[in-house]
């Protein structure tokens, strides 16, 4: 049991992760009566985002418009979009649900989720912006050989994107049953159709604005909710915490870490997945190319860090408030606990403090959150297919701009169909491990090759390809033979790999192989790649020759 809670906890903290994933296999979903308020508010959101898509499509003329919004997004706007990518249904529902069920342990995940942002800022934001154009593979292949590097980066991207999409799809289907009272398949198809429309017609411009609107709605909704909760306690934290201690079955222990991370290896591995996985998520890295220069890229990370930090503090208020305000209210309970599972704490709380209209608003925001996140994922996957694989690997760069964008539109359609299909296949299954694996892959493939390409002169193409491949395989192997898949899903007695989180092992083996193979690489190409480092370095810190905002 403890294991499952632990897994649920980890997953809930992961950005973009699905509601169902953190609900795990335990939640039996009961479809709620149809909620017209929530559905109408959601329809308003969908209508508004489709108008934006139409507007964005008319402004999308070039490849740069399509992949990077023409580099014309401001730092502040991009900060909201990045924060939106991170403030997923999981952060909102999952983390507040965790605080509701376990108290302080929920906070650990908020802290971990925030710490990756300063590191992205210090190490990556400016260099990535100055070296790349559309995808992070641009930066890695700046001085390394394009064909193998882009193939590897595209594999890393597609694995992360597909695993995430599945988790999001299953989450969307589950959420729509509980929130709107509509069938699972309906949700999956709706999400699939909308995300393909946003991405294929509106490209990065539409995807960014959908994310900005959603982030704003989510911040407003959570702020109002937290304010109303605090007003119930006369704005006294002391009173809120005392009443929570009095009501929660764990009593005073709710105010301290509950021993959920007791094994140091797991603790470290979890920390690695969180911090370095986030720094390797392709759809977040892609956002740095939507701003005009490094200056705005840095500003956007600062804004995003502030918004995410503020949002996490609100989830603490929501979680503790929910302990007091709903955990004893029969209206929100079934015989086994909270109606719809612990992840519904924030949703029920909105009804408890402000009634049906606000419940409708919060439900619509929760669903909009998933929609915005899958759109970002799809665009990232479509870019890897069209820009990295098709244009730079198959066609070796000999291809027209219009054709690349056309391929990208097809690719988003294919990803949409695939996501809907896989969402149906995995209905009702525990998909939590997919998110763990996505983070491990991001930390073991994308992150090491990107960071070393920018900071280590000695990195060679052979080293990057060998190490990245090893990182990918080790992450998958450890996850499949670990306790989550081998024991809980495949039903074997004993896990071959003893730890739940592969990131520590897969990332270190990736780094070790990359460094080892690069050092042993005595080829001419290795010498050329090292020689090109100075020029790359000067460009990465000065921005000379970097792709700027597109002048229309």
């Amino acid at each position: 049991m403890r294991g499952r809670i632990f897994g649920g906890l980890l997953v809930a903290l992961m950005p973009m992760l699905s509601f169902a994933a953190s609900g795990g296999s335990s939640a039996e979903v009961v479809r709620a009566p149809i909620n017209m308020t929530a559905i109408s508010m959601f329809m308003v959101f969908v209508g508004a985002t489709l108008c934006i898509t139409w507007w964005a499509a008319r402004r999308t003329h070039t490849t740069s418009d399509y992949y990077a919004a023409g580099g014309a997004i401001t730092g502040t706007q991009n900060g909201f979009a990045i924060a939106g990518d991170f403030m997923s249904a999981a952060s909102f529902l999952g983390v507040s649900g965790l605080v509701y069920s376990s108290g302080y342990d929920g906070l650990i995940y908020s802290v971990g989720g925030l710490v990756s942002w300063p590191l992205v800022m210090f190490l990556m934001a400016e260099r990535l912006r100055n070296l790349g154009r559309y995808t992070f593979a641009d930066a890695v292949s700046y001085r390394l050989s394009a064909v193998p590097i882009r193939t590897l980066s595209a594999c890393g991207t597609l694995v992360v994107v597909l695993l995430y999409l599945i988790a999001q799809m299953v989450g969307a289907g589950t959420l729509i049953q509980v929130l709107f009272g509509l069938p699972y398949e309906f949700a999956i198809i709706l999400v699939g159709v909308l995300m393909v429309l946003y991405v294929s017609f509106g490209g990065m411009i539409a995807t960014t604005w959908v994310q900005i609107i959603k982030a704003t709605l989510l911040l407003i909704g959570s702020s109002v909710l937290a304010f109303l909760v605090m007003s119930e306690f006369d704005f006294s934290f002391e009173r809120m915490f005392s009443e929570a201690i009095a009501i929660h079955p764990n009593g005073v222990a709710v105010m301290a870490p509950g021993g959920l991370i007791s094994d140091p290896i797991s603790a470290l591995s979890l920390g690695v997945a969180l911090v370095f996985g986030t720094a390797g998520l392709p759809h977040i890295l892609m956002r740095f190319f939507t701003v005009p220069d490094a200056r705005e890229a840095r500003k956007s990370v600062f804004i995003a860090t502030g918004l995410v930090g503020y949002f996490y503090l609100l989830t603490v208020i929501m979680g503790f408030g929910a302990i007091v305000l709903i955990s004893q209210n029969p209206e929100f309970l079934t015989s086994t606990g909270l109606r719809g599972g612990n992840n519904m704490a924030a949703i029920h709380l909105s009804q408890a403090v402000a009634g049906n209209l606000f419940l409708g608003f919060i439900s619509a925001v929760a669903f909009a959150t998933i929609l915005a996140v899958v759109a970002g994922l799809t665009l990232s996957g479509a870019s890897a297919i069209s820009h990295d694989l098709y244009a730079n690997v198959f066609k070796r760069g000999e291809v027209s701009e219009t054709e690349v964008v056309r391929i990208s539109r097809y690719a988003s359609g294919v990803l949409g169909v695939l996501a809907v299909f896989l969402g149906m296949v995995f209905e009702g299954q525990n998909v939590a491990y997919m998110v763990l694996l996505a983070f491990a892959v991001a930390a073991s493939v994308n992150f090491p090759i990107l960071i070393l390409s920018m900071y280590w002169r000695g990195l060679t193409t052979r080293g990057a390809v060998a190490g990245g491949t090893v990182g990918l395989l080790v992450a998958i192997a450890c996850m499949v033979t670990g306790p989550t898949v081998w024991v809980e899903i495949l039903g074997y007695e004993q896990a071959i790999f003893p730890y739940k989180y592969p990131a520590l092992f897969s990332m270190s083996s990736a780094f070790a192989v990359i460094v080892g193979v690069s050092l042993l690489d005595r080829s001419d190409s290795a010498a050329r790649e090292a020689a090109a480092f100075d020029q790359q370095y000067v460009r990465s810190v000065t921005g000379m020759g970097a792709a700027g905002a597109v002048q229309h």
Partner: protein
Amino acid sequence: MSDLYAKIFADEAFQRMQRKRSHLTWALCALMLGSFYSFILVIAFRPDLLAIPLGPNTVITWGIPVAVSIILLGFVSTGIYVWRANGEFDSTIERIVERVSATD
């Protein structure tokens, strides 16, 4: 063109500037990673430390201000970096690039 890059790379003011930037970068990275992993290790080995109440008349434990401080520290340290980089660093680099380009 690549000659200009080489000249900038070899420029002493540029190298000095980059040393300064990398000191700040690594100091801030160490600060964030250090505080986060210390927090994780305290949770793994001595969770009772975080369970101590702030005072005799409160139920709020040390764990709460510690977690909130790390979140604030993340925000403040990104703020420090943006402030230095978007101000001092960028303008220094810009001057260096202009000077070196002029002699090119």
